[in-house]
């Protein structure tokens, strides 16, 4: 059992506030992805959990034990680094067995465990090689195997796939997910790649400027973004936004159309938001002037102009659309979301 609790963790580098009062609970055996643009504090948070960085304030608990004063080696964690950090002076076997040797396990036990994880990561044939003789993908496998061999309560990964080429990344993504699910460890995974996050995570914590904006399942984060940042960061192409004027009684005027929306107490305008794929051409809807048409095989990505704002729609590729034409796009009513432009938070 290794639940991770992060309580009121904040981190300052000099005057720079890297993390603001982070609170997060990661359940036992959960695959948690910390997702955000570079500089959002996700790696700092991971390093604080790991013990390579100390929080300025706050507490870190792993498996019901407070660990923020402990050295990394005493926290029951293993880490996979972005640049793999495979020791160049040791063979693959000794790299994977490094942590086990530090625990002074007997030779046959080390051999057994190294061979088991090497099998899991499909690197049995590389055990006698040195890191200089390995490709990037192979080094990555060694780094993961080394972490797994420790049989840790928690495995921490800092952008482990970011140095691999696209094809290899896709392959490793699926493999990692399978191996980690099997190992029944709690995993914290840092990435800036939303596809990686969506495809691997049990839950995603979207981070922005040192804060966790939303921590929820991938579908929840995608469908019900808690804030404008999440809506525009996740999804490719991102969500569309249009200004909406309050027409009273739960009605809102969006680009000349009247749409059902939330009943707010005030008269303040809201942001109307819709995903590009949640629209259909129809007789009634938003008037859109087509600017660019990009056929993507299965779909057409149509960039248009709605009421002077940039607007993207993903339409069926059989549609005949040409730049300069006018389209009428009807948003799917249950997929429309609303945001308060002042707080940038979602409005129900």
């Amino acid at each position, binding site marked *: 059992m290794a639940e991770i609790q992060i309580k009121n963790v904040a981190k300052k580098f000099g005057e720079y506030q890297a993390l603001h009062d982070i609170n997060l609970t990661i359940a036992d055996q959960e695959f948690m992805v910390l997702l955000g643009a570079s500089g959002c504090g996700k790696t700092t948070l991971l390093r604080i959990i790991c013990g*390579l960085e100390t929080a300025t304030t706050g507490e870190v608990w792993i498996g019901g034990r407070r660990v923020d004063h402990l050295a*990394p080696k005493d926290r029951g964690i293993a880490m996979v680094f972005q640049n793999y*950090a495979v*020791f160049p*002076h040791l063979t693959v076997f000794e790299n994977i067995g*490094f942590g086990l040797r*530090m625990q002074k396990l007997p030779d046959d036990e080390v051999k057994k465990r190294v061979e088991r994880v090497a099998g899991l990561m499909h690197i049995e044939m590389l055990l006698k090689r040195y890191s200089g003789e390995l490709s990037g993908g192979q080094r990555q496998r060694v780094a993961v195997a080394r972490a797994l061999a420790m049989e840790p309560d928690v495995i921490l990964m800092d952008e482990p796939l970011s140095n691999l080429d696209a094809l290899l990344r896709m392959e490793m993504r699926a493999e990692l997910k399978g191996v980690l699910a099997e190992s029944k460890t709690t995993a914290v995974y840092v990435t800036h790649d939303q596809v990686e996050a969506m495809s691997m995570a049990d839950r995603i914590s979207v981070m922005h400027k040192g804060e966790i904006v939303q921590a929820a399942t991938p579908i929840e984060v995608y469908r019900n973004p808690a804030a404008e940042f999440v809506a525009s960061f996740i999804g490719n192409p991102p969500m569309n936004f249009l200004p909406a004027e309050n027409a009273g009684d739960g009605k809102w005027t969006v680009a000349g159309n009247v749409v059902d929306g939330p009943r707010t107490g005030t008269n303040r305008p809201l942001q109307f938001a819709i995903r590009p794929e949640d629209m259909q051409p129809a007789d009634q809807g938003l008037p859109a002037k087509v600017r660019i048409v990009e056929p993507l095989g299965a779909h057409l990505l149509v960039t248009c102009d709605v009421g002077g704002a940039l607007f993207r729609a993903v339409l069926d590729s059989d549609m005949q659309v040409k730049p300069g034409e006018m389209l009428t796009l009807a948003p799917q009513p249950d997929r429309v979301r609303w945001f308060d432009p002042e707080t940038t938070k979602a409005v129900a």
Partner: protein
Amino acid sequence: MTNVATDAPAAKDTRSAGRALYVAGVVLLCAWVLVPIYFLTINTLSSPETVNSFPKPFFPEFDLGSLTFFANFAGMLSALKNSVIVAAMTMVMSIAIGAPAGYALSRFDFRGKELFRLLILLTRAFPLPLLALPLAVMFIQTGLDDTTFGLALVHTTLALPFAVLITFSLFSGIPLELEEAAWTLGCTRFTAFTKVVLPLILPGITASAIFAFVISWNEVFAAAVLTIENRTLTAFLLQSLDTSPLHLKFAGGFILVVPALIFIFAVRKYLFAMWGIANR
């Protein structure tokens, strides 16, 4: 500047003239270093009679007479032994003190780090003669005078800046991630150092140690001032310079120069690395 299109032949002349100058410069510099070594070798490997005669042979006659005379000269062998002992102690001490300093410089951020790096180099700015008298007085007071250990202390001071700078560049070449990985795999800062960093920088440390050895081996001033009975080879040769015959001087010079040359040649790669870092 001349117009390249119209003055192409002239430019070519300039280029070949520049090239000739360059080659001449290289030849001159090589000669500057190699000719004395050549004469040293010829005279050392000749019999004492040949050394004192003229003209010299062009090839050494591989007569060990001069070297045998050198080895049998009273006090010479014990001076050689002292030189080796002092240089070995200097080597050990400058690495033992310099490597941790190099590690700290490359791994930690602290106030005055840049100033500290500058100060390390500045220790070389004090001329030794300036320090020799106070040092001699202090050594006599503490009983360190005329001991190999006392001299090794002074030589360590001389070698330390280089030891710090070389090891600093070595440690900087080891990614911090490797150490961090070791920490997460059950190492303390110390075991991570011994199990991961040390094996990786051992060749460089060896080079740095050899360089310290050579600095001590070649040093003459402090050795001459601070020792009387337990002279090192350099100090002993200096002392007996005007009383000794020509072939002894040549043999002594040869014995001094050759090990230093070989060592420096072996570790040249690391010395370049040091300057690369120092220029940053």
